[in-house]
């Protein structure tokens, strides 16, 4: 039960780190959910994130499962687990939503401010860096050998050369993984 305030604090904080995309918060999310609060293991977190790529909508929805598990584990109640999932969504999207509301209303004034362009261009490089850092820490868990490396590389090259729906490539990865790792 007392997991709820911790979940709110952790995810409200992670919310503000999602500059450029959800993955920017991943290294910090991994540290807090795996090492500090022991809600999941690293590979469980990476699995849930990856399954989330098959779901429609905003791509960090796997946070629902973290909230669900954390409370479910602590209280042994499935119903309370659902409450945990809900609380996490509100905590994760609330702060940035409020910020977007305020900035959106002030935008016309900001549009003429010369530093706005500097901020946008400066943050662009840092957010690409943060996304890359998140990608690398996720890949460290996901890519463990030649087979997983091959699947990742195949998806990367397909994405760069062709316009394919990414969800189909993730499904392809599921099939390739099953065939490759299945006992012969």
């Amino acid at each position: 039960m007392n997991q709820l305030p911790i979940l709110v604090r952790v995810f409200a904080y992670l919310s503000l780190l999602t500059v450029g995309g959800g993955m920017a918060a991943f290294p910090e999310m991994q540290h807090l959910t795996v090492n500090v609060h022991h809600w999941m293991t690293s590979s469980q977190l990476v699995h849930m994130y990856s399954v989330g790529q098959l779901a429609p909508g905003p791509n960090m929805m796997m946070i629902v499962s973290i909230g669900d598990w954390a409370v479910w584990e602590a209280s042994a109640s499935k119903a309370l687990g659902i409450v945990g999932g809900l609380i996490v969504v509100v905590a994760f999207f609330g702060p940035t939503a409020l910020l977007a509301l305020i900035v959106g209303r002030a935008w016309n004034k900001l549009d003429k401010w010369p530093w706005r362009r500097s901020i946008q261009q400066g943050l662009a490089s840092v957010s690409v860096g943060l996304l890359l850092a998140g990608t690398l820490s996720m890949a460290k868990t996901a890519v463990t050998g030649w087979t997983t490396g091959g699947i990742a590389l195949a998806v990367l090259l397909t994405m760069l050369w062709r316009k394919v729906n990414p969800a189909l490539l993730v499904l392809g990865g599921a099939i390739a993984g099953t065939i490759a790792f299945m006992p012969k």
Partner: protein
Amino acid sequence: MPLKAMSDASANTKLSEAELVATARQNATVLSIFKAFLIIGATSFGGVVPYLREGLVTKCHWVDDKEFVELLSISQSLPGLNATNMAILLGDRLKGWLGAVAGIVGVCLPGALLMLGAGMFYRVHGDHPYVTYMLKGVAAAAAGLLLATVIQLGKKSLSHRFDLVFVLVTVLAVNRLHLGVPKTLLIVGLLAIFFHYPRKSEKESVNQ
């Protein structure tokens, strides 16, 4: 007076497009915002931006392409995800904060329910061998997908060759020095912003 007639005609078609948007905006209700974003939230497999454009510009006529791109660029430069920031910005422009709430709840709801179910299934059956084989493949594919997204985003949003140095320093600060995302964001972010300080020549190119 063919010139005048022509400019009248083009003014007319422009007006009707603007009128289309104006009428659609007037008819927007909190419920219709919720429904439009719920559909986007339930169908946007593999990335939300094309579905946002299809739903908001083509189907609902709440914004034209120009305003859509403007809202998207605000969404991208704020913390938060594109889909939820778009829902807030457009919902607010249409129906105030209630519209914003309707938009964000709509776009999040389907994915949240799906992931709640997926998480419950995984918690019970996650160590079934075949689920493990499949998830290994899914995670590897997701890693490749992410890297491709970062490369595409970098190509599109980096304006200066020196920006690559900021990208590299950011990665090293987070993954090697373990400085943490907030400190990295503050230090490297400020440096990068000052690197792009407003120059006179750039001020003009803003207006082109």
